[in-house]
Each structure stands twice: as C-alpha cells, then as structure tokens.
C-alpha cells in the first residue's frame, strides 16, 4: 500500500507516490547542490524542474494514475545524475569562456578569492580551495584568530586586497563540516566534527567536556594528600574551560547545519549520488516518515517551495540560509546555554566544595568530621549524620555528573530508574538531615547559668589591672568561626571569654565567674556548666584572665560560655591592659542574658563613679561640680594625668576580703558598665583556679 500525494512541480499538479516523491526530492536536492555554485544555477534547476514536470505529465496523459518509483528512476536516467552531468559538462565550457587566470586556478592551484562561495570577500573559501579543505573550517579558524587581538581580521583584509578573484572555482572537497541536527546535544557541533574527522561523536564530546571534568576532578583532589603535584594540571584545565566554550560557540555560529540529505552525506564524507541518497533515506525512515506523514498539506507546501521560479531563494547555497536572524537566535540560545552551564557549574562546584570539605576534613585531618563527636551525642544522631550529609550534598553532584554523561553519550534510557532512585535517596537524605537538626535543636532547648564568686584579695592602690594570661602552650588543629573555636583530637577549645565590669555595691572589689550552658534538660545544662573550668590568677593588683577555656573531654558542645564579672566600688579604678585588645577579645557572644553590654577600650584606665564606669581622662574636668559629695573625687585628676601605661601600682596595700553580701544589690545600682567579650588566637592549657 502506498500513499499518493499531490505536488506542485513547475506549476503543474502531479500525483505521486510518497516513496517516489522522496526519490524525486532527493534527486532535485542533489541537482541543486551540484549547480548551486554555478552562475545561473537557479535557472538551470527551474528549467530542469520544468522539464521533469513535462515528462511526468506525458506519463500521466498516457493513462498512469500517478508517478511511481520506476517513473522517477526512468526520468533520472534520461536527465542524468549530477555526477554524470559533471563528467560531461563541468570542465568543458569553462575553458572556453574564461581567461588564463581562471584556468590556472583550476589546474595549477593558484591562491585566489572565490567569488562564487563567499561571505565577505571569498578569501576563506579561496584558501579552502587551495588547500582542498572545507571553507567552513577556514572561516572558523579566521574567527578564532580574530578573537586573538584581531589578527584574523587583519590577515583577512590583507588577503582581500592582495588576492585576485575568480568565479569559476568549484570546491573539490566532498566532505564538508556541518552541524549535525539529528544527533545533537546542544548545536550538533561535536557530532558534525565527529563526522568530519571520522570519529565517534562521544569522543569529540569528551574532548570538549574534558576541561570541565578536569576542573571537577582536581577540585576534589585538592583536598587530597597528593595535591602538591596537581596545581599545574588544575590551572591548565581551568584555562582550557573557556577556550572550549568559545570554540564551541564559534563553531555553533559559523558552521551551517546539515539540513538536506545531500548535506548530511557530505557531512559524513559519503559520495553524493542517488544511490546514497536513497540509502540514507531508508536509513532514517522514521524521521522522514514523520515528515511525510505529517499531512498532505505540509507535503504540498514543502513541494511547492521546491519548485517554480517564485521559490528561487531556496537554491542559495546552504550557508547563506544562515541569515543574521538565525545567528542572533544562535547567540541567544548560546547565551541561554551558557547561563545554564554556568549555573550548573557553580552548583556543582559549591556542592563538591561542601562535600569535599567535609570529607576532606574528616579523612585527612584525623577526626571524623569536626562537630560529630562534640555536637552529636546520641547514637541516633551519630547514625543520622552520615546519610544526612552524604545524601543531601552528594546526590546532586552524582545527578549532575549523570546528566552530563547522558548528554555526552547521547544515552537515552527508556525508564528513568536512575532519576527516581536519585530523587528518593536525596529525599531520604533530606529527611535524615531534618530529623538530625530537630534532634540536635532539642538538645539545646534548656539553659542554665551559674555565678560563682572568685575569692580575690583587694588590690593595692584601689586599682585592678586586667591582663590576659600568658600563653605557654599552643594547640593547633582545625579552627572554626575565625579562630574562636579550635578542635584538636577529641577536645574543643573556645577562645571566647567575656569581661564585664559592674559597680560594686560595697567598697571592695569582687570577681565572679559566670558559666552558662544549654542542654536537653536543666539538669544536663547545669552539669555541663559546672564541668567548665576557667583560670583566673591574681598577682597583687593584676588579674590574669586565661584567653579561653576547654570543653572537658567527652562533653558535648551545648553552647557553653564563660564570662568574668568584675565589680568595682565607686571611686576605685580598673585598668584594662593593652593585651586585651578588642580584635582578640571580640564581642562575640553578645546576645546573651544581658543586652546592656558596652564596649571598652584596651590600654585604658577607668574609674567607677556613682553614674557608672568612666574613662579617667574624661572625668577629669567635669568631676568637681558633678561629684561634690565624694571625698575621693579630688584625687581623680591626679590619676588621670598619668599616662595609662605608666600607672604605678602600690603592692604593699592590704587586700580586704571580698564582700559577698553586696553582690545581691549590684544589679539595681549599676548604671554603666564596661564589658569585654574576648577570645585569643593563641590558647594555653587552662588551669582551674576555683570550683
């Protein structure tokens, strides 16, 4: 059973079998291809079409219902195939009509510009003919050279001026570079290149994607132990990545798409004759069938285009159909894909960075990943941690790689089992992560704070000097949050201690250690808080504060914090040492139980007044009218005049015992206080002083 369709050939209505129509169409295509480079090619084609229509009409007049395959074959035998025509006509008249230059061009291979196949001046196609390669390749190379500081443009203009032009030359190359629309991932560039160089498309795609894979691979290896030898390759791949993208885009824009069967044959370097076209047609029956079977209206429209002088634009050489509009479209498409690719790449890099960071830290720095032993305490949490991290971060990476592999190999699985599996695993990972987060959050829901008085002797000279304790050991290890938390082996060190200065309700100095912790219950929070130990040492009037504190081995991290409260009686002074610098004793945990924390300056002498703590220098002048009732007031200017660093401390002053009762009222009486939240980059082993 065969379908009969009506075509309009040279304004004649011809009923033709669909298979015969295909044959006819291919034959006409091959003729068009043959004559496209010749002056008056369109005219020749329309003459021939007209003649074919005549032959068919005679057949129909003789009583045939329609044109069959045999009729087409007979017609082709009478008219001759392009390759037969070439033998008889190609060289003969040219020699007659053209001068010696042109002959030399054809026979003696002179480098000339080609007027018949040109985009600008025919330089590229002339060069291509000289070396017998596809002009498209020369054009692409020219464009790429133009990107290198315009070299290509310069060379092109020079050659345009220098080379004579010719009209006669027909490029002898059979194999041409096209983009392959049938087996494409983006623009069919790789597939077309594969056809041109007789390679498998997968190989070409791999070459184009290799830099991307290289970058990804080395991003992972970066965390590995042998990184030392890889930076060269890494930067090589990083450099090649944009090159590959640019080359691809240029090829996409410059290389024409193989539309007709003839072009597809040329793409593969097969000889273009009716036999090959016929075979190729059988080869992609499915595609062609869908085209033919789409409806007679389509076919008729299609056929109408192929015939008649009105449709003459159809006969232009293929690359001229790449109008500006199409290139703009390509650019838009390219930009779209570029953005998509960029987003994917960034996503990939971020995910790999995250996963790699965790993995790298866990594998190569000794411990399991940093927080595991400290943050996660129950078996459930430990159990959930790995799937939560591996699945939520790892699955997207796997999915992106899988997608790339599918695109590159053109592998289209029938069922999307992999996709569903990956989705399920990712959702499972997400559930684990959420569960873990909830579980950990519950461990933080209760809090406990305890103030412990630290016994101090009253300093001589009514002045306390606060300094950071000397560091006598340094503990290396992974540090998080800048340098505030250090992790070594099983222990966590916090370089974060706060200093808070308040008004004492009595006439003596008092020091208090504040320990704070969260926990899943109050009793656990209390236990954790009490486990904290912190070193405060007094050397006469100097109070040495340890720069940090450690979590006891085996304690989980539950937001434990330490603050030192120093209560200064009115009229007495406190000197904040120059090693208590803010950039080290930063105001890190500042949203604590008290929102009224001020910043203090280091290397400064402060004096407690009834209004609160003030810098000694600032009190100097206004003091007399403000505080007439205080007997100590007149002394203040004397102290303030001294440079802070040169303050002298009297060491023979007897230290009165700390007054414990006054502490209860201190909150009510304080007005201004100076606080210090501190951490230090170096950290010493901590010595318990009290508790």
């Amino acid at each position, binding site marked *: 059973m065969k379908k009969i369709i009506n075509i309009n050939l040279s304004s004649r209505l011809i009923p033709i079998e669909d298979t015969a129509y295909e044959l006819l169409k291919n034959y006409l295509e091959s003729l068009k291809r043959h004559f496209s480079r010749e002056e008056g090619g369109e005219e020749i084609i329309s003459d021939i079409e007209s003649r074919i229509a*005549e032959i068919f009409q005679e057949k129909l007049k003789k009583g045939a219902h329609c044109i069959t395959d045999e009729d087409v074959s007979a017609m082709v035998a009478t008219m001759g195939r392009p390759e037969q*025509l070439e033998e008889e006509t190609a060289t003969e008249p040219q020699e007659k009509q053209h001068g010696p230059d042109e002959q030399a061009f054809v026979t003696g291979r002179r480098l000339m510009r080609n007027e018949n196949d040109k985009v600008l001046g025919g330089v590229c196609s002339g060069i291509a003919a000289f070396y017998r390669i596809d002009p498209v390749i020369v054009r692409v190379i020219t464009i790429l050279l133009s990107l290198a500081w315009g070299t290509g443009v310069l060379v092109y203009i020079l050659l345009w001026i220098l080379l004579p032009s010719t009209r006669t030359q027909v490029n002898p190359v059979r194999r041409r570079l096209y983009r392959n629309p049938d087996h494409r991932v983006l623009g069919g560039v790789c597939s077309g290149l594969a056809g041109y160089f007789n390679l498998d498309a997968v190989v070409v795609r791999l070459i184009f994607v290799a830099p991307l894979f290289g970058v990804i691979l080395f991003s992972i290896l970066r965390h590995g132990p042998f990184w030392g030898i890889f930076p060269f390759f890494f930067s090589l791949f990083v450099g090649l990545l944009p090159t590959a993208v640019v080359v691809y885009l240029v090829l996409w824009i410059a290389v024409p798409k193989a539309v007709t069967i003839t072009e597809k044959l040329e793409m593969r370097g097969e000889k273009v004759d009716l036999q090959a076209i016929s075979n190729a047609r059988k080869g992609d029956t499915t595609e062609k069938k869908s085209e033919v079977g789409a409806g007679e209206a389509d076919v008729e429209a299609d056929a109408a285009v192929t015939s008649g002088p009105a449709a003459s634009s159809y006969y232009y050489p293929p690359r001229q159909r790449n109008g500006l509009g199409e290139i703009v479209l390509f650019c838009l498409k390219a930009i779209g894909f570029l953005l998509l690719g960029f987003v994917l790449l960034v996503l990939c890099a971020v995910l790999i960075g995250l996963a790699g960071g965790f993995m790298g830290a866990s594998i190569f720095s000794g411990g399991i990943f940093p927080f595991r032993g400290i943050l996660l305490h129950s078996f459930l949490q430990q159990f959930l941690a790995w799937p939560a991290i591996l699945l939520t971060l790892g699955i997207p990476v796997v999915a992106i790689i899988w997608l790339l592999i599918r695109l590159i190999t053109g592998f289209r699985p029938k069922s999307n089992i992999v996709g569903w599996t990956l989705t399920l695993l990712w959702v499972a990972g997400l559930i684990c992560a959420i569960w873990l987060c909830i579980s950990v959050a519950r461990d933080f829901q209760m809090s406990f704070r305890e103030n412990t008085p630290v016994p101090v002797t009253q300093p001589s000279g009514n002045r306390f000097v606060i300094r950071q304790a000397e560091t006598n050991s340094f503990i290396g290890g992974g540090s998080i949050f800048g340098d505030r938390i250090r992790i070594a082996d099983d222990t966590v060190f916090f370089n974060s201690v706060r200093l808070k200065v308040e008004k004492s309700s009595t006439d003596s100095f008092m020091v208090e250690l504040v320990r704070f912790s969260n926990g899943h219950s109050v009793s656990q929070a209390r236990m954790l808080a009490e486990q904290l130990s912190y070193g405060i040492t007094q050397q006469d009037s100097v109070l040495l504060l340890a720069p940090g504190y450690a979590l006891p081995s085996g304690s989980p991290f539950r937001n434990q914090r330490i603050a030192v409260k120093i209560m200064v009686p009115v009229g007495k002074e406190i000197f904040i040492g120059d090693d208590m610098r803010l950039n080290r004793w930063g105001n890190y945990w500042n949203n604590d139980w008290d929102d009224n924390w001020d910043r203090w300056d280091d290397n400064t002498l402060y004096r407690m007044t009834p209004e609160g703590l003030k810098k000694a220098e600032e009190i100097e002048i206004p003091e007399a009218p403000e505080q007439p009732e205080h007997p100590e007031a007149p002394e203040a200017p004397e102290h303030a005049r001294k440079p802070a660093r040169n303050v002298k401390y009297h060491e023979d002053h007897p230290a009165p015992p700390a007054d414990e009762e006054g502490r209860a009222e201190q909150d009510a009486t304080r007005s201004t206080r100076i606080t210090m939240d501190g951490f230090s980059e170096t950290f010493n082993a901590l010595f318990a002083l009290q508790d």
Partner: protein
Amino acid sequence: MRKGVLEFCILSIIKQGEAYPSDIIEQMRASGLDILEGTLYPLLTRLKNAELLTYRWVESNSGPPRKYFSLTEKGASFYGELEATWEQLATAVNKLTGPQTDILEP
C-alpha cells in the same frame, strides 16, 4: 571528449530556428547523438549567459510557458567561427583517417 562539439551541435540546431530544449534533444537523438537531458540545461544557460543565445517565453497549451531559444548576433558570428574551425578540423581528420593514398601520392 566532446569539447565544444556539443555546443556546436546545439547552436546549429537553434540556428535553424527557435528551439525548445525538448526539441533539441529530440533532434540530437534523431541524428544519433544521444546525450543526457540534464546536460543540456546547464549548457543552454551558459551559452545564454555568454550572450550567444537568447530566449523568449512561449505559452504552451499545457502547463507553464516554455523557453524558446534563438541565436543572438554574437551567437551567429560565433557559430560562423565554430563552423569554420569544425570544417577545418573535419577535413584534417578525414584526410588523416581516410584512404592513405590521397595524401601520399601527390
């Protein structure tokens, strides 16, 4: 092989009067010169582009108008040259390939 000969034949057929491509083919076949039809159209176009031929559209009773070719003045003079060359060539070839005695005896 048939360099120029084909053009010569076509021109001579057209010289006898306006001709339609199918007529030309018919005439050539009739005189035993069998060529592919596809060969003819490019030749005609080239001759026309070289201003040796011209054509006019003639309405046909069925289908689209046909192209009828005729010689231009340039074509006519070119045909004269071709004819002379051909005569010369034919005589020479005939002499060479004909009975040997004609040349040797005198």
